[in-house]
């Protein structure tokens, strides 16, 4: 097994570490970087729990080889709030009840952050088609939808 030196930014901080060729991004984040905010759900790219941004693009960390993130900038849920100040989206999730058990929430927040980055005032259809791949077993999705609407209005 070959090993590979990766230099990348995680939530703005420089990282430099060596990983085996078969490392996945989810394990790079959780095990090597200690960033356990990102959750592992289905492990096959379907549920959205491990959603992260790589160079601004929304991807499933469980499907991305770690070697792919050399020289990229990654944002995980830990990178949203600045100095303890929640983003409008995080604040809206709390106000609108956008979560219950919370396991899917890091992925929901990252996916919705990417959505608002591309569509600052998304239509209902845009919200639903974008968030469709982030599964939640508790909320019934209405709270998530309201939270995104509220955050979009606050922008």
């Amino acid at each position: 097994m070959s090993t590979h030196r990766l230099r990348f930014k995680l939530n703005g901080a420089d990282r430099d570490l060596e990983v085996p060729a078969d490392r996945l991004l989810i394990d790079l984040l959780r095990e090597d970087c200690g960033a356990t905010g990102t959750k592992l759900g289905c492990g096959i790219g379907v549920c959205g729990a491990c959603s992260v941004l790589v160079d601004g693009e929304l991807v499933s960390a469980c499907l991305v080889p770690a070697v792919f993130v050399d020289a990229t900038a990654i944002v995980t849920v830990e990178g949203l709030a600045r100095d303890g100040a929640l983003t409008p989206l995080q604040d809206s999730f709390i106000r609108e009840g956008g979560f219950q058990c919370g396991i899917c929430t890091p992925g929901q927040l990252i996916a919705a952050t990417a959505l608002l980055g591309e569509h600052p005032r998304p239509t209902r259809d845009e919200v639903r088609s974008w968030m469709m791949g982030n599964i939640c077993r508790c909320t019934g999705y209405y709270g998530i939808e309201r939270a995104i609407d509220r955050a979009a209005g606050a922008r």
Partner: protein
Amino acid sequence: MTFEYHEPRELGPALDLLARHGQDAHLIAGGTATVLLLRQGLLRPGHVIGLRRIESLGGIARTSDGGLRIGAMATHRAVERSPMARAYSPALTDAFASVATIRIRNQATVGGNLAHADPAQDPPPMLAAFGATVTARSSRGERTIPVADLAVDHFTTSLAGDEIITEVVLPPIVEGTRAAYLKFLPKTADDYATVSVAATLRLASDGTVAAASIFLGAVGPTPIRARRVEDALRGRARGDIGEAAALVGEEIDPVDDARGSSEYKRRMARVWTERTLAQLLR
């Protein structure tokens, strides 16, 4: 899984690695399919060759004759968002936009999709209906393969073991041609199709069908060309399509699975072929 990972910056070294390691090497483009195969232990290569740093494999651009060139490493989402791809045909960007979720589309590549040859994928039938070709390079040279002839069985292509898809080239669209991609999704919006229909159609000045190209996904081991439907449509007038669409059942070979029985898929193939044609003739 234990393997050596290589990430060449040029196509030449990638072709050399592939020629040198033969069956012991596997290419990784976006990784959505390969990572799963590696994780499940179904694929056990000694060498994995990453293509992501090879710049010549990227890009989406109109060709000088009015066609479209899509670099093999362009992601599904890059095609979906490309104004040039949309200008070529909105049906093309629709087909790419209907794949799974945004996360998958951000990662999965056009060339990787074609090389994986899963018969339930969305882009191959649409690309085939447009008459697209892929360029395959090896250390021996270069050749052009119609997308319609690329998949030969489940997960099996006509590519040689040392060939890499470098690009997909779509020919210029004949004036007056209409195109559509419809995907039947009875379960969830991010699922593979139960049946999908890609079609291009051109009307003569008298309103009859002058040319049709129809490919179905998910109802056989490869995308399937509905030749009988195409033949039956030629010369027909609009509103006269039900009979032609009914012929699709003779061309497909669906199997029973979680997305339906083969009999159900056969019926749905007829329904969705007719709907696709109706949309094109509206």
